[in-house]
């Protein structure tokens, strides 16, 4: 999967949930959305991208969300 595309997608999701001032809730919502709607191979790829390449291009909150909820996404 093209990681850059996934980054764009995650950023879009994060941009929506970011309206909530509660950062933990945002991270949970972002991860929950990925878990609920993404094919596992996409989730694995974004986690791999974060693990191996530091998740360059991800919004900060998105990066945090993936790191925080890494296990849930795999």
């Amino acid at each position, binding site marked *: *999967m093209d990681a850059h595309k996934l980054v764009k997608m995650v950023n*879009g999701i994060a*941009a929506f949930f970011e309206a*909530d001032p509660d950062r933990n809730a945002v991270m949970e919502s972002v991860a929950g959305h990925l878990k*609920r*709607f993404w*094919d*596992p191979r*996409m989730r694995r790829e974004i986690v791999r991208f974060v693990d191996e390449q530091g998740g360059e291009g991800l919004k900060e909150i998105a990066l945090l969300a993936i790191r925080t909820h890494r296990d849930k996404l795999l």
Partner: protein
Amino acid sequence: MYSVKEPDGGTPRRVSEQLITLEIDGVRVVVPAGTSVMRAAAGIDRRIPKLCATDTLEAFGSCRLCLVEIEGRRGYPASCTTLVESGMKVRTQSEKLAKLRRGTMELYISDHPLDCLTCPANGNCELQEMAGVVGLREVRYADDGENHLNVVKDESNPYFTFDPSKCIVCSRCVRACEETQGTFALTVLGRGFDSKISPGNQDFLSSECVSCGACVQACPTATLMEKSVVDKGQPDHSIVTTCAYCGVGCSFRAEMKGSEVVRMLPNKDGRANHGHSCVKGRFAWGYATHPDRIKKPMIRRSITEAWREVSWEEAIGYAASEFRRIQAKYGRGAVGGITSSRCSNEETFLVQKLVRAAFGNNNVDTCARVCHSPTGYGLKTTLGESAGTQNFDSVQDADVIVVIGANPTEAHPVFASQMKRRLREGAKLIVIDPRRIDLVRMPHVEASYHLQLLPGTNVALMNALAHVVVIEGLHDEEFVRRRCEPAAYEKWKAFICEERNSPEAMESITGVPAAEVRGAARLYATGGNAAIYYGLGVTEHSQGSTMVMGIANLAMVTGNLGRPGVGVNPLRGQNNVQGSCDMGSFPHELPGYRHVSDPVVRASFEQDWGVELEPEPGLRIPNMFDAALDGSFKGLYVQGEDIAQSDPDTKHVTRALESMECIVVQDLFVNETAKFAHVFLPGSSFLEKDGTFTNAERRISRVRKVMPPLAGLSDWEVTVALSAALGYPMHYDHPSQIMDEIARLTPTFSGVSYEKIDRLGSIQWPCNDKAPEGTPVMHEDEFVRGKGRFVVTGYVPTDERTSRKFPLLLTTGRILTQYNVGAQTRRTANVAWHHEDRLEIHPHDAEQRGIRDGDWVGVQSRAGETTLRASLTERVQPGVVYTTFHHPESGANVVTTENADWATSCPEYKVTAVQVKPAAEPSMWQKRFGEQQRAQIDLLPGHGRS
């Protein structure tokens, strides 16, 4: 006129709690107040002669055949225009009445050709019938009198003829055009004996006529007559079925001669259309028997090879073996299926079942992905159900109608007619659209507000509207308190009241003057029942889902939900968008919108299907393309969907398709996707199979087989065969059994059966023990999810922005006479109205670029370039250009980008930054497209390079 006779009460039915008792020909009759004497008489089978009256139109009183005698009244009142009164005594027959009726009929016939035996209406002509009924035996007027017998026929419309020599000037056509269709294209020209029906002093094709067929249907003679009836003669039987075009889901009577369709007539009892139709459903069904139809299965090993016609067994066997080979080589998740909103509920259900049970994964998606997936997400999140809240008839109770990003008169014409009727009755209209759609101003309809926003700024505008409502205290606090989650509401309220959401703050983003926004918000919140109707101009954005939730927020905060006349109403583009979504076509949801991760739900399916189901979501369509390019997705079963034409960023899609090893296309025609296919399974049209469609108002209607499948098998039978070949046999003898299985497994469908649909005509789901006859209006006492949930909808600008290189915003839409990718309508005479897609550009933008009307222009985006002819129009605002996307060679999707809705990946078709320049020749893409087109045609049997 219906060939296969239906009762006609002469004037429309009236509903009233007050009942009137009167006496007709000595018989006591009780009817609702407001009923005409004619209709009351029809109720006791006293058929008063009539020509200008029909129960689909208001009484007119012109033919004077229906005169009656009423005790105590002078003269001979017309029974169509005379309303019943208590104690009235009516005589429908007397010597004097007989003489008057004959006298009038004698006048009619004195100006009518006497060619009954060779007339196409022979045997189905009301004039002929009435001449018999009144006992006309001679016409005493000399035959050298002035007449209209030599007036020239107008055959310009491809579907019907207008023969004024047969016209009796009853105005039924004019009235149908006004009352039923609301187009006002027809009029009576001249006075007195020179009065004649005219589409405005020009021929029908050049006129304002939208060819809905209402006039033809209303005509009591052969004056307006379907060419198919002229050619084939009167039909011998009729079968009620459902139109396969847009999401209105009109009920039709297929009028047949043997297994040949003579004409399609809208069904008066159809509850979505009430006897009305549009040019597509009424006339554009000829594609079903078009010579381009592929009637034999075909296979080939590679897409550069010639197609080989094979037996069904071989084709299906080959497809199954390829899928199994790919799964063995690349993994279980390397194959998937795509269902179609064109296909029936039953067919869709089977395809997703095949993917989940036979493929063993959740890689199933549907074309709703690219249209209304945000509706599913947004409405489910806020209200709890992925569906529109109302029935169409609800609009008759609306006082304020808001149309957002939809163009009903083009894309949902039959519902638009109903909406226009309500608007003519005085309901107020707010249009939110970057383009000046017809509804903004048309005969007897004018929007109170047209908020002409910039493409891509929906959420900003919606937030501004809600801001005004809350800040100005126009909201329904009581409704919110009773019906919605308080915490979510408080959070949303705090957000929406922020100054950055005010119309003044948003003005520079949306381009809509703040005062207009305030006015519209006040009207919506305080104008009585307010109903929102929206289309793909809402969903096909990077914030599509956000916007849907914004709409739901606004409806909730004003209490405009849960009763007739209000609601949130997605206008679905295709006949079965709602149904295909209901049937579990999404990779994360089983039928009835239940997540695949829910073990209880999964267990119910596992038990019924006898397989273990995958608990993780599968790939969405755009992800499938990405995975294909990635090498992890290699096989695809596509039923009735042309992804190569309809999905965005065509170059990306075709690269993905080229990289796959087995694409199975099941379709009527060799479509764009089939050019990349390895197996072609001939599809069956809606005329060739049994099933059900679910329209935009959740109405499940029957599709009935009126002719045998041209290729021998209905689509559902093909899926069953493919599943069997994959080692997962399904056991159905008839689609009704598939519906039984759907009902068994889906709580919202548990009360649905073919038997019940046949009995009730149609059913709106939810249909279960709580609502055994279905649910016209949802969320009446509480929301499906319990309490309504407000969602904070921050405006996030799309990444697709204008720049010096791409200074214009391209948006797209549909036109009345064509339908989506045009596979059907391009194969009908509808091309007479729209034979090419054009680029609408504001004269100011055109002037700057040296573009004149009709010039070829190149349209270039970050994704690609295509060439179209330009139309200069002020419908679009400066800075915005627009095109339809019905012709594949237009390549509208060559320029659209991969931007998509954050929640559902629904593509952002509605916003593409482009540059437009004069062009001398087709774009590179179009040249390649042309070559490829020719090459693929050569690969078809009978075209072989032998």
